[in-house]
């Protein structure tokens, strides 16, 4: 039975199992279908009911004495009368500007002193207090009538009363001003040198666009929690895990099958939630409320949001499965899930802030990058495909690491059997057994954690391009040995993994070393040609040209020895140790040759951040991985990497060199996009390609020896023995 077959079997069973569970169905279907209409319609009705109630309620105003009460009463009546007159005029001229209703239900209470008045506002027996400084005089231009309103901003009725009263005063003042200007023979525009109007250009979906991704993220997570617990900790609690573990199926297949079910349920939940929101909006009369705020929700947008939710659901399901795999009981799993929930919510919340943008560190921030991408798509903002790819690749890397960890934890005996020692033992060095190779989960997890860290390091080193390129180079060269070498070596040491074997530190055959040299000398030819084709086809982003120019300038200013160390030696050593040593060894332990090489190359590409360089970096990663796999040593790849980087650096420092072999070199003034990317002469392409083929052919012979252990997947296909 093939891998796909096994996973499909597990997937089908788990999906049936989880869908037959009433609790899943309730959480997934009943909640969204009942909850949204209830929540949205209910709250809207409650709000509109309350607003209606306010306008009908009597406004209770306190004053200091009867005289001031009469003044206020006169103002209110005069305003009501004026409003009625204006309404009649409007009806006659068929003009249509909205007029506020005159204040009719009100009570004025005379209270004696300011002190009493404030006390009554505080105990809410009156809504506001109004105090006049003196008798109201409207017809004398020398007088400003000062009025103090005492209110409680937090009390919604007081707030309402204040607005009503202030509106009355404002209208009365407007009328008085008009009369004063007329008396003085001044034009109506006398005191209005400016008038301002505002045109709202915010996108129609903006309000929902800001909030909806966050709500849906919550709902997707909620959908994933229950199946994740049920399929991992639940399996253990019900005692079905043991019988599963004695089946001839690799744990990773079980976890992948379960992970896919959780993802499916999470996406189904998200889709149902989204559908319910849409239905409520369209059929529930909610669209009018949105229309008032200037919004609408087209179906296309809904589909877009759902597509954005898929990678998020994948990531959340993977993380949930990993976390719940650690738990032995349902309850324990629930305790573990809460912090994860919060951890996801925080970056989600940061991303929901209007000022956050999808750039810099945010591109690699798990969850936040998805929320921002969804928001930008919803708002119709320009989203560069580079960013989309970055978000998808980093999310895939995180999800893969989480699934690998889940697989590692799930099969652990301390987790399978409650009586086999505490979970703490997993991290106790004295209980760890020595191994030859790191596990796939260890290497994927370390590399996945390193990715955002490295991204942040790079971002802070360049500080948005404000720091000199030379400083960035120096900083990178200093940090690389720490992050790419020291950290993995420490982890390998702690987990008692054979460091030499894990990092493939052994002498290669002369044949493979020669292959490394030849490929190192020639690889720039296909790389350059690909870049030219890619530039013609897709164009070159300005940022790439600019950073290349800055880099070239910085390199020319440094001594040649420094350049070789910074650009060729350090990256060659550190990157080979991390990607071909640590990472490829981990993948080797549980995957076959090509998936392992391709995955390590793809991750190598992702670590180079520039999407423009991605194809070439992945291509180089494949060749380097192949060299390492075939030779059982990282040295041939290291030599190739060193030579390749040296040649690129030298071609920048000594631009006259390439011309000697007939390669056209762009002059500095034409280093703009078109000049940088010119095809090589045919003979150079021919020689370069021939060397690459020779190098590859030299590398095809594998070494004999125990360096390539048999993968678990292959073990299942071993011929059955007869009994």
């Amino acid at each position, binding site marked *: 039975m093939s891998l796909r077959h096994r996973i499909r*079997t597990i997937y089908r069973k788990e999906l*049936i199992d989880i869908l037959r569970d009433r609790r899943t169905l309730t959480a997934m279907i009943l909640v969204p279908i009942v909850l949204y209409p209830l929540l949205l319609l209910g709250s809207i009705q409650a709000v509109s009911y309350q607003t209606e109630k306010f306008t009908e309620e009597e406004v209770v105003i306190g004053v200091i004495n009867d005289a001031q009460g009469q003044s206020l009463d006169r103002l209110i009546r005069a305003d009501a009368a004026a409003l009625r007159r204006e309404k009649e005029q409007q009806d006659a001229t068929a003009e249509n500007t909205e007029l506020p209703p005159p204040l009719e239900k009100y009570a004025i209470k005379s209270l004696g002193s300011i002190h009493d008045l404030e006390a009554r506002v505080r105990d809410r027996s009156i809504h506001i207090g109004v105090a006049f400084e003196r008798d109201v005089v409207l017809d004398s231009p020398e007088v400003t009538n000062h009025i103090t309103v005492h209110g409680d901003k937090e009390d919604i009725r007081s707030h309402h009363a204040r607005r009503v009263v202030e509106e009355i005063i404002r209208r009365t003042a407007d009328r008085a001003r008009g009369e004063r200007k007329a008396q003085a023979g001044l034009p109506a525009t006398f005191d209005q040198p400016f008038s301002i109007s505002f045109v709202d250009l915010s996108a129609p979906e903006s309000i929902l666009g800001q909030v909806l991704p966050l709500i849906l993220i919550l709902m997707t997570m909620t959908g994933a929690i229950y199946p994740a617990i049920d399929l991992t900790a639940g399996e253990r609690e019900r005692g079905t895990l043991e*019988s599963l573990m*004695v089946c001839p199926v690799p744990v990773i297949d079980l976890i992948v099958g379960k992970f896919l079910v959780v993802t499916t349920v999470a996406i189904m939940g998200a889709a149902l939630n989204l559908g319910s929101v849409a239905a409520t909006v369209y059929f529930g009369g909610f669209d009018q409320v949105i229309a008032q705020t200037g919004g609408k929700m087209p179906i296309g947008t809904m589909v877009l949001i759902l597509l954005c939710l898929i990678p998020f659901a994948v990531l959340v399901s993977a993380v949930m499965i990993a976390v719940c795999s650690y738990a032995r009981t349902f309850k324990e799993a629930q305790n573990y899930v809460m912090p994860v929930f919060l951890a996801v919510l925080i970056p989600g919340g940061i991303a929901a802030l209007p000022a956050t943008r999808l750039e810099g560190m945010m591109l690699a921030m798990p969850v936040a990058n998805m929320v921002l991408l969804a928001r930008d798509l919803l708002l119709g903002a320009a989203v560069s495909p580079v960013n989309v790819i970055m978000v998808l690749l980093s999310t895939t890397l995180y999800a893969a690491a989480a699934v690998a960890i889940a697989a590692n934890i799930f099969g652990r005996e301390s987790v399978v*059997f409650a009586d086999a020692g505490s979970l703490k033992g997993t991290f106790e060095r004295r209980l760890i057994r020595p191994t030859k190779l790191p596990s796939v989960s260890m290497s994927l997890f370390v590399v996945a954690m390193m990715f955002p860290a490295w991204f942040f390091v790079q971002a802070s080193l360049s500080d948005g391009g404000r720091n000199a390129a030379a400083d960035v180079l120096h900083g990178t060269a200093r940090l690389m040995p720490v992050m790419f070498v020291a950290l993995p070596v420490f982890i390998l040491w702690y987990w008692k993994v054979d460091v030499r074997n894990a990092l493939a530190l052994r002498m290669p055959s002369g044949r493979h070393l020669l292959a490394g040299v030849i490929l190192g000398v020639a690889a720039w030819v296909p790389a350059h040609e690909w870049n030219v084709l890619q530039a013609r086809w897709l164009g070159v982003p300005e940022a790439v040209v600019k950073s290349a120019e800055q880099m070239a300038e910085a390199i020319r200013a440094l001594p040649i020895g420094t350049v070789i160390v910074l650009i060729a030696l350090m990256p060659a050593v550190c990157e080979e140790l991390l990607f071909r040593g640590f990472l490829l060894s981990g993948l080797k332990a549980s995957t076959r040759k090509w998936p392992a090489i391709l995955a390590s190359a793809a991750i190598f590409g992702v670590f180079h951040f520039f999407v423009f360089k991605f194809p070439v970096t992945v291509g180089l990663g494949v060749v380097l991985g192949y060299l390492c796999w075939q030779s059982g040593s990282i040295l041939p790849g290291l030599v190739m990497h060193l030579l390749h980087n040296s040649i690129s650096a030298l071609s920048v420092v000594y631009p006259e060199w390439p011309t000697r072999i007939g390669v056209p070199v762009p002059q500095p003034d034409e280093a703009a996009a078109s000049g940088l990317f010119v095809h090589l002469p045919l003979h150079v392409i021919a020689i370069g390609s021939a060397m690459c083929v020779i190098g590859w052919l030299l590398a095809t012979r594998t070494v004999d020896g125990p360096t390539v252990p048999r993968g678990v997947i292959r073990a299942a296909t071993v011929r059955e*023995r007869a*009994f």
Partner: protein
Amino acid sequence: MDMVVAEQLVKEFPTPKGGLKRAVDGLSFRVGKGQIYGLLGPNGAGKTTTLRLLSGLMAPTSGSAYLAGYNVASEPHQVKRILGFLTANTGLYQRLSARELLIYFGQLHLMSAERAKQRADELIHWLGISEFANLRCGALSTGQKQRVNIARALVADPPILIMDEPTLGLDVLSNRVILEYIRRERDAGKTIILSTHYLDEAEDMCDTIGLLHDGRLIAEGDIQHLRETSGEERLSSIFLKLIHAREQVEALVS
């Protein structure tokens, strides 16, 4: 050829105080084809741990185990293909029917969907599960569940069966039914290892009995041999005598 071989098996568990506890301590034994080997011992003697070590569910601290010649530690997949494993408290998937469960496990044992269905029907007929084959496992009685469990362990028709207290908590009738199944499997040439506290049951069923105490085998042989060496008639007396003797020896040595 010995179907099951345990060689100097040791399993240590970390204790909460940072020490190590030996649950299995240098255990060695062999079981021939078509034999029932009974592992007997009080609670905490290391029976369950031994069976888990044999099935590859746990890795031994030292020593090794072989099933049908395969090394349990280095060839886990081959071992899992020839092994049926059963425990008294094994759960079933509550929301699947017995038939669905058997088909699922058949497929996990690398059968095609058709073959798995066919095998499920055979087992349902053979173990008398038909009445409740289409009910969800959550609705079954303890005895019915254990019958389904046995069917699950037999799904791949494995030449070796490991059963950890297969009759624990069953009533007399169910007990008889389960034991009858086990005998039939043995008669069909299967090699069976079972653990139990029910001494009469062991006396009736087992070709060879191993008495386990504190992770060590203190006596081994057929019932006749045990009787002769200990001079006691009933297995429970033999057992008590042996443990007692041992404790006396230990007291003298220290």
